[in-house]
């Protein structure tokens, strides 16, 4: 079996595990799931029977599980009482907004983070290196939501000028599609900046540590002994090897990114998966909360799979030894 196929089967198994875990989390553990769905203790027996049938909760646990899997395969994530809409429609819209936010911040984080990490790592032991490390650790120690609150305070109350809430200006009339785009872009600035400020630190530290380790390898000594110019030494020999652990570490970054996005969306009312999760917690809308957890988890599993595939392409040793 090829390693790639093996990795793909692991992905499928993980998704299946998450789906099953999700089922048990919301259908079995907290007692009667109907109580959670209807959020009312005072239902007539007829209403209870009807809801049980609608939600596929009238059979044995195994039957319920089959109904659940069947609904999932048909893209049916249930119905939200608090929003009066199909959960899959709500989640679909939110997912697009979240992906927009994550794409923008990830591009900034990866490019700037690696650049600063290489800057610090190639000056190992110097003042500029230790300053960069300490600054990164300070930013990495900041709670993302608090950074967001500070930016809201600075740009919403103190200086002003940038939108601090939502994805578009309420009741705005746009002349054309570019008007919409520029409005969305303006609303993107602060959420993206918040995510980037905290997460860039992660890439700086990983890149820098990895480069410092690589620079200590014997082949780097050889390269230096050959009299290679510093630029080629650092970028051609050092960074190329140092980036492999950075790709591996992106597994941890994906989790941190998701956690950061949830907080940022709450602070800036960005209508994505994070805000949806937050609102469903506040209104105890369990079908929505369940769907949010499922969709976010599966998305992260798939993202990890992609990172792994890239890593295998970059480093042939992985394929040979495993």
């Amino acid at each position: 079996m090829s390693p790639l196929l093996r990795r793909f089967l692991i992905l499928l198994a993980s998704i299946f595990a998450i789906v099953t875990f999700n089922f048990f989390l919301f259908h079995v553990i907290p007692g009667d799931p109907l109580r959670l769905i209807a959020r009312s203790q005072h239902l007539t027996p007829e209403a209870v029977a009807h809801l049980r049938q609608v939600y596929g909760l009238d059979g044995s646990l195994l039957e319920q599980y089959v109904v659940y899997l069947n609904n999932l395969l048909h893209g049916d994530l249930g119905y939200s009482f608090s929003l009066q809409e199909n959960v899959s429609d709500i989640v679909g819209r939110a997912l697009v907004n979240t992906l927009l936010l994550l794409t923008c911040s990830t591009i900034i984080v990866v490019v700037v983070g690696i650049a600063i990490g290489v800057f610090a790592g190639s000056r190992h032991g110097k003042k500029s290196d230790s300053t960069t490390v300490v600054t990164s650790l300070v930013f990495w120690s900041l709670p993302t939501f608090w950074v967001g609150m500070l930016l809201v305070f600075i740009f919403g109350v103190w200086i002003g000028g940038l939108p601090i809430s939502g994805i578009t200006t309420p009741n705005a009339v746009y002349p054309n599609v570019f008007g919409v785009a520029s409005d969305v872009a303006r609303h993107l600035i602060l959420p993206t900046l918040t995510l980037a400020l905290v997460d860039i630190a992660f890439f700086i530290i990983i890149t820098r540590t990895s480069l410092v380790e690589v620079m200590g390898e014997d082949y780097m000594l050889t390269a230096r002994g050959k009299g290679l110019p510093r630029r080629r030494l650092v970028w051609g020999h050092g960074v190329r090897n140092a980036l492999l652990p950075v790709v591996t570490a992106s597994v941890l970054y994906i989790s941190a990114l998701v956690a950061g996005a949830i907080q940022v969306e709450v602070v800036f009312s960005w209508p994505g998966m994070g805000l949806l999760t937050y609102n469903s917690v506040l209104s105890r809308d369990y079908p929505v909360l369940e769907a949010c957890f499922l969709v976010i988890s599966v998305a992260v599993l798939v993202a990890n799979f992609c990172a792994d595939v890239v890593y295998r392409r970059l480093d042939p040793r992985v394929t040979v030894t495993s």
Partner: protein
Amino acid sequence: MTLDPAALEGEAVLPPTSSKGSLRLLWEDRMGRVGLILLVVTTIAAVLGPMVFPFDPAAVGADSSTILQPPSAGHWLGTDELGRDVFAQFLAGARISLFVGLMATLISTVIGAGIGIASGYFMGPLDVGLMAVTDFFLVVPALPLMIALGAIFGQNLLIIILVIGLLSWPRTARIVRSQTLSLRNRQFVQRARSLGSTNIRILRRNITPHVGQLIVANTILVVAGCILAEATLAFIGLGDPDRISWGSSLHFAFVSGAIGRGAWWYFLPAGLGILVVVLGFTLVGHAFERIDNPRLRGGS
């Protein structure tokens, strides 16, 4: 003390540094020293603060004129949206945040180290099974799972500690496993085995002491993560409503619109508190990593 067989072999097995020696190395590391000072100061504030300044963090103001007041002689850090003293809440919150962080870390370390050592030492099917579970929890996004569990099981300190602790161990397990794997094939362990040492004895005498230092460095970084996780959960609104932590204080500041009203005294202290504690643990943790891995030390 018996002779360490590894020393006779000339193997590169460093004897575990004593805790006193580690503290000295930590103090010599500049970042480690700053981190240590930050932690000592916060711990003193959290433990002694509420005794030295016996203000009641829950005492509500008499009338609407006490609401969201800026710092004054009566209230050093002003008041919140119910007229409560922010400074008293800050001190009380330090206790809760530290307590939750440390307890969750304890749970996480016991599970992570246990799984890591068992997996790395016994190998075989046990290893495959445990690592499958570990890898699963390593990739499942922790915060959404914590939010789901917190929303289902309710909001009290015990639940929060359990939720954070039970989801923070996979990295520890991975790191401890790889270290155990490399130790078990060293000659001093194989010798102990051929001399008839039982598994329990080898784990106790040969494996655990050498893995211990690694666990300490990792644990300190886990504390930072657990404190951040608690703050985030509490900010989302899943904190214990009866015990205000720094995170829940920021939740109330956010929900009550303190930012829009410019009440900086309300949302700055708790956030700075989290920053200082998390930074303290991070600096000390990284300093321990440098002590374990000399190649990362500066000035080479």
